[in-house]
């Protein structure tokens, strides 16, 4: 299988603080890669450097062999790279359906056709599918801001998949989600991975979630890669146990 994402010697410093310090890794097509590490180890900064929201101090990011370092987030999204955020990032004044249509509309036709074409950019059916898939059916017309935290997390994840991306970076998707919804979310992610062959990179603190979802895990500590391997290998790594898992 080909490499979808390649990160080479990525650095990001804020003044004298090295948030990301020479991180390199690659992700194969269809893989679910987990990135774990203690708070402040640089996980989200790494995501933001990969996704063009922060300019890396040094290093390169490639998508399908093409250099995408410092590419604008909107351009990256149109290349098939999608993401969720650590903090909730839905549009609270729009309904669940409108949030989903918004998440896919820029992939439909040209700007001009979107102005003069259908109001839903032809995405109502896709949005309904996604609403059903993420079990948000009874909330389709509700304003996103009125949903529970867990439901907003599901919506946030659903939005990331509206445009049929090939690479999705999920930043703490399980954070604040109750056990029932967590099971739903994991099941949905697995299904999308299996059915659509989408590639995932997941940052998460919930070890059970990561270890049961991901086929490979990278452990970050102080901005560097501390360990890499299968969930079982990482669990057994003494350096990881000392730095992060703690027992």
């Amino acid at each position: 299988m080909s490499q979808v994402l390649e990160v080479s010697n990525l650095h990001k410093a804020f003044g004298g603080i090295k948030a990301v310090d020479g991180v390199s890794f690659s992700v194969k097509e269809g893989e679910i890669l987990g990135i774990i590490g203690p708070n402040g180890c640089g996980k989200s900064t790494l995501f933001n450097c990969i996704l063009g929201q922060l300019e890396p101090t040094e290093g390169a990011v490639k998508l399908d062999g093409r250099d995408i370092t410092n590419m604008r987030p909107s351009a990256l999204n149109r290349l098939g790279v999608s993401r969720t955020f650590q903090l909730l990032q839905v549009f609270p004044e729009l309904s669940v359906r409108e949030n989903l249509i918004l998440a896919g509309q820029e992939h439909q036709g040209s700007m001009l056709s979107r102005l003069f074409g259908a109001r839903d950019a032809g995405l109502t059916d896709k949005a309904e599918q996604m609403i059903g898939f993420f079990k948000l059916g009874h909330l389709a017309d509700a304003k996103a801001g009125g949903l529970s935290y867990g439901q907003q997390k599901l919506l946030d994840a659903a939005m990331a998949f509206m445009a049929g991306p090939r690479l999705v970076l999920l930043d703490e998707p399980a954070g604040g989600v109750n056990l029932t919804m967590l099971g739903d979310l994991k099941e949905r992610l697995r299904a999308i991975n299996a059915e659509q062959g989408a590639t995932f990179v997941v940052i998460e603190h919930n070890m059970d979630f990561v270890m049961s979802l991901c086929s490979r895990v990278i452990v970050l500590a102080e901005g560097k890669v501390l360990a890499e391997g299968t969930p079982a290998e990482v669990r057994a790594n003494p350096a990881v146990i000392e730095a992060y898992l703690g027992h």
Partner: protein
Amino acid sequence: MSAPATTNDLSRPRGRALPGLIDGTLVTLLLGAAILWFAPVGMGRYGTYVLSLWLVMSIAVMGLNLTLGYAGLKSLAQAAFMGLGAYTTALLTTKLGVSWYAAFALSGLLTFAVGIVLGFPALRVKAHYLAFVTLAFSTLIWLILRNEQWLTGGVFGISNINRPDFFGIKLFGALEFHRFVVAVTLILAVAQWWLIRSPWGRAFTALRENPIRAASLGIDTRAYTLLAFAIGSAYAGFAGALYAPLVEFIDPSPFSLSQSFFLLLMVVAGGAGYLLGPFVGALLGVVLPEWLRFAGSLYLIIFASIVLLLLIACPQGVSGLLERGWTKLTGRRGGTR
């Protein structure tokens, strides 16, 4: 690190439009136009003039509502753009003999183009920093209008601005021109209604509510920021192109910075981010002072008190207040957007 969601307090939300092509807002616009068509009968020249002025100012406020209310970009240059439109139309029609229709289109094009250029700082600076950039532009335009006498007539302005014909029908009379203004206002309002309910409108809302998330969904925030600025400015240009023949004489004073603040007040008081808000805001700004004439020199104090009380009672403006009332009455949202 993820950026938190941002919300513009000036521009809250807005009822959900009814499904289908025809919705409550469009029906209100069409009904309103029909009423305004006949409204001036028996009103006299001055009353008709005030109604027309209200509609012309509504067009300028519609533009600012798009820029601020929907896209969340704070501009203090709307009156300057209106001035650009008014002077372009006045100069083209009086000095070069260009037809009003061509001058109207060119005024819109010019203000659209200048709006694109002025929108570039909006890509780098936000909130009050952007407001300062537009404030500087506003002052610059006013100085040009006042000082470049060879072109603009300076403080003496430009007079004898003729009103256009419409397929041979003379629009010189107050009633005829008012009806022409009603038609143009309706066209521009329906165009904005279409824009707001299109995917562009959704992208503008996303830009206001959370530009970082919007970009991560493929929304070209640069393009939409520039478009919001440019279209909003073009509306001011169109308003200026109608204002010049309405008053038949223009000078720099109606296009000063204080007028831009006044237009901003109309957006907020009417309800930022509500499609019908500009009409309500301009009604407060243009017609209310006329109703308060009986108070003589106290009218400004009364006017300011009314606006202050309104904004304390309902920061979402009159449209927000109406929407709240509608929601309580019917138990659902909609109707005023």
